[in-house]
């Protein structure tokens, strides 16, 4: 055993997997919402989520991360992306890395190699989190009903990402394009968020996408 325990957490065989919103059976709701719904929701499931800890003010850390991911270390309250990989500032020593599902071990090993000798932490969170994508003209209103954080475009441009209070719990809000937002949610709260978002978007109409 080594200093840090790193291992493949995904099965090699084709084994049954359930995303955090599996029970909501979103697939069966596709096409059932209102026409021209104000809000469209989809779960971006089975992605690789990793928490990366390290000193964000240390240039060596930034260059190690860049070497491993090809991404600049994001500054406070932003998310940077390249292809399907995104890296988000969570705190001065904490980042959220999202990669295509199945790449968790490989990217962790790359990071550890590039940051060799530095005090860091890499933790696979893929089973504990999921992404909800919200798209449409009324998403901003739904967000305003839910969070005290200012989601006006002046304050929340594309590329911004903040951890905040949402309804009665906490999550991360990311703005990925003009009318597309992502919520990074914890698995155990996923049903609460699903119920909340249905309720809060009811007056604008909600549709589900695969």
């Amino acid at each position, binding site marked *: 055993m080594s200093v840090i325990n790193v291992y493949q957490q995904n099965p090699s065989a084709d084994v049954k997997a359930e995303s955090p919103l599996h029970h909501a059976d979103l697939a069966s709701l596709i096409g059932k919402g209102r026409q021209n719904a104000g809000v469209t929701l989809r779960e971006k499931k089975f992605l690789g989520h990793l928490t990366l800890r390290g000193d964000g003010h240390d240039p060596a850390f930034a260059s190690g991360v860049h070497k491993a991911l090809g991404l600049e270390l994001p500054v*406070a*309250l932003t998310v940077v992306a390249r292809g399907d990989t995104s890296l988000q500032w*969570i*705190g*001065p020593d*904490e980042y959220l890395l999202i990669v295509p599902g199945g790449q968790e071990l490989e990217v962790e090993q790359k990071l550890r190699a590039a940051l060799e000798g530095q005090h860091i932490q890499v933790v696979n969170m893929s089973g504990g989190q999921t992404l909800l994508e919200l798209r449409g003209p009324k998403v901003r209103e739904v967000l305003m009903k839910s969070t*005290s*954080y200012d989601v006006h475009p002046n304050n929340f441009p594309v590329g911004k990402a*903040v*951890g*905040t*209070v949402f309804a009665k719990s*906490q999550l991360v809000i990311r703005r990925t394009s003009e009318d597309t937002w992502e919520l990074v949610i914890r698995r155990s709260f996923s049903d609460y968020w699903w119920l909340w978002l249905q309720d809060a978007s009811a007056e604008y109409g909600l549709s589900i996408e695969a």
Partner: protein
Amino acid sequence: MLHIFCPHCGELRSEEEFHCAGQAHIARPLDPASCTDPEWGEYIFFRDNPRGIHHELWDHVAGCRQYFNATRDTVTYEILETYKIGEKPQVAAGKQPSMQLTKTGQEEKV
């Protein structure tokens, strides 16, 4: 609902994102064993309850998960500054806040 400038996020955020962890600058004695019972009791139980300037420890639990300090007027509830752990407050009891405070951001953006 207070509006608190998180010195790590660099933004004013709503009070509900934070948790107040009590009086700031209560350092753990370096050698607890040498403390008398009253000294240890002072450290763990006794806190100031001033009318006016008070330094407090806050945790940005819903945001960056960082602890930081805030100087708050307990009469007006105005927060005069926030500053990182390890930094010294610029405002102290009996000392009026100076203009340079704006650099903490608490006043800057309202």
